[in-house]
């Protein structure tokens, strides 16, 4: 069985949540394997990340280089290619860094590549059976990968539940001497932090959240009317921001804001995982969608198959009515 490595990202020495999920994924490839964590960076932050990983990984490869202080996927790729043994299986999280790193790494390692995995069903000989989603999560697919010359696999964040693991008391192995001379055609300059916007959707009790189903900018008012009646705010999924119908600061999801309302009205939102990743604290989700097969209905508490452009105004009227009665 090929050796399994998990590339772990960290921020200022704090390891990413994916560390435990990648361990769980490695276990599904080979329950007998003791996967090795690989971390890149420099200085005390890197040492601190390595120390944390020793709690769950038996071996932690430390790749320290000043050029790796900020994670540049091209430099990390070159460092990994220089240290990884042939035929390795490399796991990484399917988030912005893994998306940048993994495809090119698979080419340079001559390894098979499969991305955004939701499940690993196991090995048959040299064939690995995994599960991916297609078409916005409407369908899943079993995919078979020939890993005879190694593999690079990215794992969907949150899809693999962390295992309860006995303390590993791992060893740090310093492979920094082997990373080689690192240069890249892309150079990091700065990070521009997202603006908060006029309304902070992360602090709302109720969110009336709209997706592509709102159809056009003029219809945003329908959701705003309901939000006003409820004393709520309007948030949205990515297509609404892409179409410039609402500000980026209103977007819920992995590339937007993480929110934790009590009640979340998902109106015309299909329920892509990037969107659901922004929903924290187990809110009561009321989903309204014209498509009965929309993935949002898998995670919602209550679902309604209807045209939100007709339903929402009636709901707004009903809320006004209830308020009058209560007053």
């Amino acid at each position, binding site marked *: 069985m090929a050796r399994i490595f998990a590339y772990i990202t960290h921020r200022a020495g704090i390891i990413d949540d994916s560390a435990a999920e990648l361990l769980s994924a490695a276990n599904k490839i080979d329950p007998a394997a003791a996967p090795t964590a690989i971390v890149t960076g420099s200085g005390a932050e890197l040492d601190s990340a390595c120390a944390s990983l020793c709690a769950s990984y038996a071996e932690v490869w430390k790749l320290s280089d000043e050029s790796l202080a900020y994670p*540049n996927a091209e430099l990390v790729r070159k460092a990994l290619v220089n240290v990884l043994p042939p035929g390795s299986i490399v796991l990484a999280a399917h*988030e*912005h860094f893994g*998306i*940048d790193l*993994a*495809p*090119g*790494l698979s*080419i340079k390692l001559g390894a098979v*590549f499969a991305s*955004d995995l939701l499940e690993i069903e196991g090995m048959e000989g040299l064939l690995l059976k995994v599960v991916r989603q297609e*078409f916005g999560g*409407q*369908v*899943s*697919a*079993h*995919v*078979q*990968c*020939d890993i005879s010359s190694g593999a690079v696999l990215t794992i969907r964040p949150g899809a693999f539940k962390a295992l309860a693991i006995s303390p590993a008391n791992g060893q740090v192995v310093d492979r920094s001497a082997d990373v080689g001379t690192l240069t890249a*055609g*892309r*150079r*990091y300059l*700065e*990070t*521009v932090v*997202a603006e908060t916007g006029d309304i902070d959707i992360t602090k709302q*009790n*109720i969110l009336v959240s709209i997706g*592509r189903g709102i159809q056009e900018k003029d219809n945003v008012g329908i959701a705003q009317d309901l939000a006003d009646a409820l*004393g*709520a705010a309007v948030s949205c999924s*990515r*297509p609404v921001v892409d*179409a410039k119908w609402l500000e*980026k600061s209103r977007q819920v999801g*992995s*590339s*937007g*804001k*993480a929110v934790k309302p*009590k009640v979340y*009205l998902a109106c015309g939102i*299909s329920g892509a995982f990037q969107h659901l990743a922004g929903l924290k604290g187990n809110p*009561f*989700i009321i*989903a309204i969608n014209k498509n009965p*097969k929309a993935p949002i209905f*898998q995670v919602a*508490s*209550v*679902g*309604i*198959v209807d045209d939100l452009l*007709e339903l929402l105004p*009636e709901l707004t009227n*009903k809320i006004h009515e209830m308020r009058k009665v209560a007053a």
Partner: protein
Amino acid sequence: MEILVCVKRVPDTSENEIEFNPEGNDIERDELVYGVNEPDNYAVEEALQITARVGGQVTVVTVGGEDDEEVLRREMAMGASHGVLLADDAFSGSDARSIAAILQAFLRKGKYDLVLTGVQAEDGGAQVGGMLAAMLDYPFASLVNSIEVLDGRKLRISREVEGGNREVSEIDLPCVLSIQTGINEPRYVGMRGIRAVASVPVPTYGVTDLALDPNTVGETAAKVKRLDYFLPALGNGAEMLHGSREEIVARVADLIAAKGGLR
């Protein structure tokens, strides 16, 4: 600047309900409405805006079959100067690596300063752009949400990272970028625009034209194979509300109040 944009024809899932074929190994494709992969429109629009600023031409390319020519014409109607179809029986069943290899073979025939893809395909996993870049030894950046052309064959780009933050970098040309949706507002294409490019020739290249070994692409070379499709596990699933709209509205209002929504 000469820009190549790689596009793909996919089923439009916002318009379709996906059904399985009786064998369960594929979705029913006959009834599906196909169109260009939506993120690819952002890539083409970005390419057109760059060439409008600094000069040059935009070429769109796709790997597929006859049916895929329609997406090339749509992007040409947006303003792309050329469309190229990479089609051959030997390409069928290609995995992402083979698609990247076919595109690499095409890139060898011309000279492009910049290669763009959409951030990911509806039926894909953000794979081909990064693989293609590594094959070409070009720098690569994914999730790009702004591009500024600098002097000295460089771009200043930003990537969308966690929480909507932007990671700003400088990248050397030639390079490959995967374009995030929302970077621009893709222009509208009407029937008139499509008719205007209907007679522009779209060359087709196959294995021989691209000097490809047919054994390195297509089903025989594929190391990643889809076995079947199935419906995702439903979890508990939502309690679906039925009845008249009036009843549903009353129920939803009560639920919101009960869950602490109404204050």
